[in-house]
């Protein structure tokens, strides 16, 4: 089981295949060369918790195998965060220096960029449900004697794993934007992005279950992801905004992932109190400063809620 290397179609594609096909079809009525062995008869047990766990695990593993096979995706998913972080971050530095109190703009937007790259990967992973439906594979899972919820849970966990892997790559880049590699800081960021990856994948799956075509999903994604990103405060502090934007910002779930992560980063770098006040004002609800733990809890709850909806939806379709 451990040797699950994925062969990317390479040189031995077309010609080898054709030849092979002919060899087989030219001698149709032959049994395999080996002496007629005993027929291996297996049986399918009744549904049980163990079989559901097995189903969850294999669906989860499939997401990982697919991600590994799709190296292009890993690379392309990195382009956008790198652009934001280094091009936008460096380019706008001069413009922003008046307001950042000596803190690098790159450091400031780093938590937000981490969140958005996790978010994008998570949404793309969720999109695989739409692919599966279009290419028929979903049917193979739907007719299996397992609960629909096992399939959804496996999917969400798989997508979350893939997305947090993307997050880890961004975490590795911390040093380039003056964020120290402090174990506690890294652990905290890792935990937060794991939660976010889970919540966003659940959210994506919830949407994807209802959508039949990839184009529609991409459209919906653009419509939801970009606004969530811009409104969340990934690129600006969440205080002193116009009233309407403050309201939107507080509704945006991504706000509650970016904010504690930024606080964590700022706790581990040396900056002036003025900078702290300006750049990390924290999220307030009617004047109440929302603690980081509550924020993290909200993300987790939202994720669980959306997972429940996704399961319910998936169980009632087709």
């Amino acid at each position, binding site marked *: 089981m451990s040797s*699950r*290397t*994925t*062969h*990317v*179609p390479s040189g031995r*594609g077309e010609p080898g*295949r*054709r030849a*092979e*096909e002919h060899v*087989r*079809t030219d001698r*149709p*009525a032959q*049994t*395999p060369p*080996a002496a007629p*062995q005993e*027929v*291996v*008869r*297996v*049986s*399918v*047990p*009744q*549904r049980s918790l*163990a*079989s559901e766990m*097995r*189903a969850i*695990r*294999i*669906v989860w593993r*499939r997401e990982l*195998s*697919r991600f590994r*096979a*799709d190296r292009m995706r890993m690379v392309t998913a990195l382009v956008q965060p790198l652009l934001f972080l280094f091009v936008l971050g460096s380019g706008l530095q001069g413009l922003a220096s008046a307001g950042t109190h000596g803190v690098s703009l790159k450091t400031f937007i780093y938590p937000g960029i981490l969140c958005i790259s996790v978010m994008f990967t998570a949404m793309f992973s969720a999109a695989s449900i739409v692919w*599966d439906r279009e*290419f*028929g*594979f979903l*049917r*193979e*899972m*739907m*007719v*299996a*004697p*397992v609960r629909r919820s096992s399939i959804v849970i496996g999917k969400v966990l798989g997508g979350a794993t893939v997305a947090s892997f993307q997050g880890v790559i961004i975490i590795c880049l911390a040093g380039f934007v003056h964020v120290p590699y402090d174990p506690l800081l890294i652990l905290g960021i890792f935990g937060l992005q794991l939660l976010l990856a889970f919540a966003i994948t659940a959210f994506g799956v919830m949407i994807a279950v209802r959508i039949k075509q990839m184009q529609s999903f991409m459209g919906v994604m653009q419509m939801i992801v970009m606004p969530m990103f811009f409104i969340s405060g990934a690129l600006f502090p969440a205080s002193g905004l116009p009233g309407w934007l403050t309201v939107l910002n507080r509704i945006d779930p991504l706000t509650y992932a970016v904010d504690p992560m930024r606080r964590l980063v700022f706790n581990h770098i040396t900056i002036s109190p003025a900078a702290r006040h300006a750049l990390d004002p924290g999220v307030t609800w009617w004047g109440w400063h929302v603690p980081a733990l509550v924020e993290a809890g909200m993300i987790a709850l939202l994720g669980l809620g959306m997972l429940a909806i996704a399961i319910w939806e998936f169980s009632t*379709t*087709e």
Partner: protein
Amino acid sequence: MTDPVTLSGMTDPPAHPLAIEVRGLVKRYGEIEAVRGVEFAVKTGEVFGFLGPNGAGKTTTINMLCTLVKPTAGSATVAGYDVMRERDDVRRNIGLVFQDPTLDGYLTAEQNLRLHAELYGVQSNLVKPRMRQVLEMIGLWDRKDSVVATFSGGMRRRLEIARGLMHSPRVLFLDEPTIGLDPQTRRSIWTYIRELKEREEITIFMTTHYMDEAEWCDRIAIMDHGQIVALDSPETLKAGVGTDRVTIHTDDDEAAITALAERFGVEAGIVEGAVSFGVPAGEEFVPRLFQDWDPAHPSIRSVSVSRPTLDDVFMSFTGSSIRDAEEDQSKQRNRVMMQVMTGGGRR
């Protein structure tokens, strides 16, 4: 036919005499009745063919038997389990090969089978030997590590058959297993199916709209417009037609049909662009035809005589050839599809 035996409640009856039993099965999509009360039984170990033009209701029937679609009325048992009340038990005991591909092209052949085995909960220590067996049977063992995306259509279909067999199902459903494949690959797929039947205790239920393929089945049911119009072994059905088919190409088909009726008392029709009719002894009829053919009649350009085929069986029961029937039904099919796509088919 054997008496119906209900075995609900028992766990995996060893040898149920009937692999499939269907009573008054109906499926309605809105106002369209896709399946209109079909009844049949398939014995354990049989290769049973479901035959008919596209849109006759074959896939809908198969989907109901596989618990993918809920019947509007009627009942069915598969491997001794009720398709409505014991869905999971049915699913554990059937293998499915769909009309449309359902493989994961990003994964290797082995990974696809492994995934299937895990989803079905196949005993871990048996996964490897079983996988080897099914892959060797369809001749893809040496390609097990190749990504499915590199496979040809025929290889994919074979792999799907292998996958459907991974969990040793009692009944294997094949929905148009050879559709869209070249004749050579089609033949080899049939070889695998026959081979499979000899090796494993399995019942095979398949649909096809290739008449020539139905000859491979032990028994066939002919379906048209949502109903079964004939059910027997291919030989019996063909013998039942009793006539040979004479096909003539003429300069004026309409006039030729009239002439045939007046002169010879045979009722001819236009089938696939030629005048066609059935007579008891075809070879003997041809000389008579030319002897008595009035020079005033439209001239005959070619004649062919053929022994009854299943296509003739189909024609004798439905009055049209399977291809013509498909053209007729394509409009209706489109309507059904529209209904399904706009949500009318969702339950």
